[in-house]
């Protein structure tokens, strides 16, 4: 049997793209005065952030009572939003760590912004466990701080404490990983900077990167080690978040399937969010060359896979409820389908299980508008999934006398909306001050023809299908690229590393 594998399309497009234009394209946003759209967006984001700050202040000054939680439902919007945001924060590390280990080259165009998104999403997520505490000012008691109270330690049996460790570890490792990746790019920006002040600042933050082989060597090693550390974290964070529910006694919460289910859901929602953001970013920042339709398509495929995984989990939960013969559990699942919050369950099934099936069609996968809308719906569906798990697990549990309903107050809604303000404020600042694409890494996958021209030039930037003949003249290209700009070392290393993978 003869099988000819299809030739893969190039990961970076563009007629005139060369190593220099890549640097130019990416750095230019950080060097020029931002557009008025940026200012408008930033203003809006700041306004929403202010809303967040005011609502949190109001909550802390007056009491959690300004939310609509009650004696039966102790968590609702707060923890739903927490789990949702932490799920969104999953794609970044997955893309940077796991895909790095799997040598998925396409990740390089998107990993920087995905990692940034992770960090900002974890900020938003981390906010909720803090402000949902009745006495925020005593929140430090959650930490295993040395103390003279006995000594009195936190309760190491509690999943909430594991959360504290899981999230803070995840945040710190993500930040370190992200920052490590930034160092060569910061050095590039340093070298390009014209004002002295900027140069000094960037010198400081790039840790005196010179681009020597030794630097590159260590950089690669650190990245690999961090990827090794971060990979289990991708799995562990949401596993531990799921323990918040799985270690309880409540029907609908107390489920062994939760760890894999939550991880799959997190990757699902994380990719959906990356999808949403990148479609905006590539449009606004003209990065179509780097974030190609091919990227979108690949991510859509991940969405089908993870969407399938969560659907399997949904099915398993229902099966187990029936199979266990446990009345309370069965009631909870009937209540999910036909109870007062039926819309939550059905939107989660519609958006998370049914909708991604459209991604089986190639046309849809490659249509940025449709995928954008679908990714947004998936995020809505994933929000409902968390709402269904959290609120519907407790609003009708064991004793019918205590059954209750929940609907958010304006304060809770505003806090949720406000977290978008926090997220986008951070994201817009990131877009303004840091390279949104990893310059050094993306160059490593830049393909060049035998004639010294980039492959994109053969087919044109907007070609959807690529049928060209690939050829590489690596050594020559390395030489050709070594003059003209001030960061030849980067390219030398990258080319040497990535060439053989094709």
């Amino acid at each position, binding site marked *: 049997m003869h099988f000819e594998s299809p030739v893969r399309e190039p990961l970076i497009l563009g007629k005139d793209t060369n190593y220099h234009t890549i640097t130019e394209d990416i750095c230019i946003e950080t060097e020029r005065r931002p557009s008025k759209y940026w200012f408008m967006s930033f203003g809006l984001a700041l306004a929403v952030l202010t809303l967040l700050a005011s609502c949190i202040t109001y909550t802390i000054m*007056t*009491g*959690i*009572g300004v939310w*609509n*939680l*009650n*004696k*039966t*439902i*102790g*968590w609702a919007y707060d923890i739903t939003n927490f789990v949702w945001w932490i799920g969104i924060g999953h794609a970044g590390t997955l893309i940077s760590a796991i895909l790095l280990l799997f040598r998925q080259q396409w990740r390089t165009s998107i990993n920087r912004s995905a990692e940034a998104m992770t960090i900002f999403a974890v900020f938003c997520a981390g906010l909720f*466990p803090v402000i*949902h*505490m*009745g*006495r*925020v000012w*005593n*929140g430090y*008691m*959650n930490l295993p701080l040395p103390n003279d109270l006995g000594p*009195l*330690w*936190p*309760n190491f*049996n*509690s*999943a*909430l*404490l594991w959360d*504290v460790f899981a999230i803070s570890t995840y945040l710190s490792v993500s930040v370190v990983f992200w920052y490590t990746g930034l160092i060569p790019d910061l050095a590039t920006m340093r070298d390009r900077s014209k004002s002295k002040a900027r140069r000094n600042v960037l010198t400081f933050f790039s840790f005196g990167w010179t681009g020597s082989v030794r630097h590159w060597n260590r950089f690669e090693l650190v990245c690999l080690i961090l990827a090794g550390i971060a990979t289990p974290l991708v799995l562990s964070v949401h596993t531990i978040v799921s323990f*918040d529910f799985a*270690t*309880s*006694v*409540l029907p609908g919460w107390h489920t062994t399937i939760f760890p894999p289910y939550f991880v799959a859901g997190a990757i699902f929602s994380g990719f959906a969010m990356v999808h949403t953001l990148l479609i905006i970013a590539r449009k606004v920042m003209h990065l179509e060359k780097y974030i190609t339709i091919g990227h979108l398509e690949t991510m859509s495929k991940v969405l089908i896979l993870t969407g399938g995984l969560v659907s399997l989990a949904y099915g398993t939960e229902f099966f187990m409820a029936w199979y266990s013969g446990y*009345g*309370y559990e069965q*009631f909870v699942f009937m209540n999910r389908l*036909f*109870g*007062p919050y039926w819309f939550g369950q059905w939107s989660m099934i519609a958006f998370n299980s049914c909708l991604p099936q459209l991604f089986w069609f190639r046309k849809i996968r490659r249509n940025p508008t449709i995928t954008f809308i679908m990714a947004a719906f998936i995020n809505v569906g994933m929000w409902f999934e968390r709402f269904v798990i959290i609120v519907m697990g*407790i609003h*009708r*549990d*064991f*004793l*019918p*006398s*205590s*059954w*209750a*309903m929940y609907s958010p107050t304006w304060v809770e809604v505003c806090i949720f909306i406000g977290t978008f303000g926090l997220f986008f404020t951070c994201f817009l600042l990131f877009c303004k001050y840091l390279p949104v694409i990893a310059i050094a890494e993306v160059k490593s996958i830049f393909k060049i023809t035998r004639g010294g021209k980039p492959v994109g030039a053969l087919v044109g930037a907007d070609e959807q299908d690529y049928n060209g003949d690939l050829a590489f003249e690596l050594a020559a290209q390395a030489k050709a690229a070594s003059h003209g700009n001030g960061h030849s070392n980067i390219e030398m290393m990258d080319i040497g590393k990535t060439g053989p993978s094709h």
Partner: protein
Amino acid sequence: MENKDQKYWKGLDELNNEPEFAKQRQNEFAEKLPLGNILKEDDLGLNSNRRDFLKFMGFSITAATIAAACTRTPVKKAIPYLIKPEEIDPGVDNFYATTCNGCNANCSLLVKTREGRPIKIDGNPDSPFSQGGVCATGQGTVLSLYDNGRLPKPLRNKEEITWENLDKQVIAHIKESIASGKGVRILSGSINSPSTLSAIKDFSTKYPGTQHIMYDAVSYSGLLQAHKQMFGKALIPDYKFNKAKVIVSFGADFLGTWLSPVEFTKQYSAAKKTEVKEDYPIHMQFESRLSLSGSNADIRATLKPSQVGQALTSLYSKITGGSGSLELAGNTISHAANTLLKYKGRSIVITDSNDPDHQVIVAAINNALGNYGSTLDVVNPSYQRAGNDKDMIQLVTDMNAGKVGTLIIYGVNPSYTYPDTDAFNNGLKKVDNTISFAGMMDETSQNIKYIAPDHHFLESWGDSNPKEGYYSLSQPTITPIFNSRAATESFLVWAEATETSHYDYLKKYWKENMLSKQSQYSDFEDFWEHIVEHGFFTGKGNPGSLTAANTSLVSASVNKTSAQVASKNLEVVLYEKVAIRDGQNSNNPWLMELPDPISKVSWDNYACLSVKWADEHNVTDLNVIKITVNGKAVELPVLRSPGQTYGTVGIAYGYGRNYGKITVKDASGNNEEIIAGKVANGIGANAFPFAAVSGESILYNGATAEISNTGKNYELALTQTHHNMEGRNLILETTIDELPKYKAKEALGEVGSAQLISLWKDYRFPAHHWGMAVDLNACTGCNACVVSCQAENNIPVVGKDEVRRRREMHWIRIDRYYSVAETNHVYDDTKYHDKHLEIDAMYDKNKIDYENVKVAFQPIMCQHCSNAPCETVCPVSAISHSSEGLNQQIYNRCVGTRYCANNCPYKVRRFNWFRYFTNSQFDYTMNNDLSRMVLNPDVTVRSRGVMEKCSFCVQRIQAVKLTAKTESRMLKDGEIKTACMQTCPANAIVFGDLNDPNSEVSKLFANKRSYSILTELNTRPNVSYLAKVRNNIEDLA
């Protein structure tokens, strides 16, 4: 650091370790603390050294603080605690025996005081009739004491006046009235206080022609008149429910509100403790709305108020050998007649109807059954109600005719409670002088010229004679907070008596009249000491003899009654709520927030409609309807109520209050506004105008009502919105037949006997292991424990809006579930969004007979699980398990993640959503200095953001343990009483040590009816429930 080779010593005696020194070293202080000297006056000052100075200072500051905290206004004869009152030890409870004035049942109380302020009402355990029980209303009276809407001083035309001037003017007016021939009328509630009656008698002697009219807002006049007709004396028999095998009640809620509910509950629940079928009481209730008693009945039949007469005549005729004309569904009247005849002389028939004819027939039934002399004692009758409708109606007529010179109103509020309010108010304008003893600016007081505020009963001396031969004393438990004066004293002053001090008068009266009624003491001072300590004595009354009943007039009543035809109209049924009663206590936040035991609605009254009738007339929960009766209309939200008779609308008294406000000068001469009714004003609507003055009686039920939908919606504050047990094994039931071989744990099926393993190591409880047993068979669902717990544990009142948001803070709640007879349960969840009556959701409503529901109650408090789900999930270890099996919430460690509440399968944890004690939004019990005086200093007031829950009254456990320790003895079983246990009028709650196999609670845990709920979760609760027992319905047919 100690040098090994060197030894330091303070003196030679230490060096030589002389025996004297060794002995002294055992003591913390070298010398005895000269506390005794400090307290001696002659030692003050001169010989002080530094230590004494510090002691003095510490003591004075404490004393000053206590003194400042305990008395709001400077009081005459107040002495700071520089000289400590003999009986007061800061931090130690003092108990005073007194008599409850929350309603006219006049139960004997023990009032717990702390540093001179009452903080908790407990029943007097020695009392033969209330037996230590006390109802929700009684519990609430202590909070009413600290109502800052109380009148602070006497008033004339709403302006302050001194007592001297008031007395002078009032006496002048009274004399004028006497001179003008119009005379003086005293309008009071039922008074059974011998000394007050004597003072009124003195007053009447001084001012001849004075008439004393007694009037009850919810009248028992019909009952009194019927007995007057039958036995020649207007009396209420002393009912003995414990002796009754059969109880048939027509509407009388004797477990909730009728006559003497605590006493009756004690008797009723005691009777139900038997396992002998022959003795197990049969309770039949015929009523129009589901009352607390009806919810406990074996057989319950609904009927309209207009059917009561016929039902009674039918029963009467069946019992006397005839055949009745009316039969209710399921032949219940015949069943009642047969059962009553089977147990002749061992039954009680009662009705709450105020129609004297109805009461005559009931009395005739009881007479025919031979109940007088066995279960109904008319020789030693009850004096708990004495109001006479005829006199009241006559008074109103006289007032309107301008025949009343001076009207003195004592303890009643006819402008609110009299059905024909306009007639009363118009009449009031024609009275020359009006005087009232009202403590608050209530509806009547707003039209009164002179107000001479009476003490709250906890501030006052007094006595009571609720039953023949039972005399109970009241004594002040606090110095009067305001410038009030006992009403009895006012009578004496106005009568220009020589002895005007209430206390002296009372003591003199007791010396002259009471000493001879007992034989234990010959010396009065000894007797007085005894009575002040014990609160009551039972002695020789003036028993009459059991005369044969005069039944000659019965047939007239029967004829009159059987002519009453059942109407097809919508009829009004008025009722008292368990806590709010006739509205006297409606400004009490505890009672206002207490959910109705049946409807579970707090903070409101509402129109109870039968589910079927409401559906047919297109009204449903949340709708506000306008109810019009005889041209008077009120608007109330609808509550479709299971158990409500088709074609009736039930409305509770006590709402729609309209207290007024006044401006007076405070101590520093500034104008101060006294706002009464902060809690009650504007809540619900007044139902009293729907009662009717008919001839010589006031009839409460049966008026024809018309309703119209206003199109408005209103959300009631419910503490429980789902009313169906969903077939879960929460409340187990058995029947008296099956009881001998019943095992609750087997009834639980697999989960009851499963051996569950745990990851954790089992706790060991070396000393004590506290547990609680709740007998669901005894519990009537009366809610007294809820208020008791609230008072004991400083539980905040959160208000209507917060209850709507399902945030009430009660640590103990009583779950109430409805169940219907066997039907095809059709799972139809389309109405799940219906926030209120979710019963629809569960069944095909066309197949349900909502009128005939069974009710089950289950008190739920923290179950103190040995494997507590809350403990493991707390990230900061704010919940710990004590070595005595208590699940302890540590407030100052709690950060408020609420995970514990989520993970509690019993949902007993309560979160402090706000800072209830300083947030002006919650101006109920903790937001002003006065009402904070009710707080129990032994229990922390919780800060916002922390979780709280039932602690098994750990402060009480500790206190008793401490006592036992100082007395070097073991704890005695039953010595520790949690607040709920202590109050329970049904003795349904027992707390004790499970490590002691002989303790009451251990025995109950070993009882065959004992089980715990949700044991399949392996939580291992330390609360056990005892399955409910019902009669076999087949036997009753």
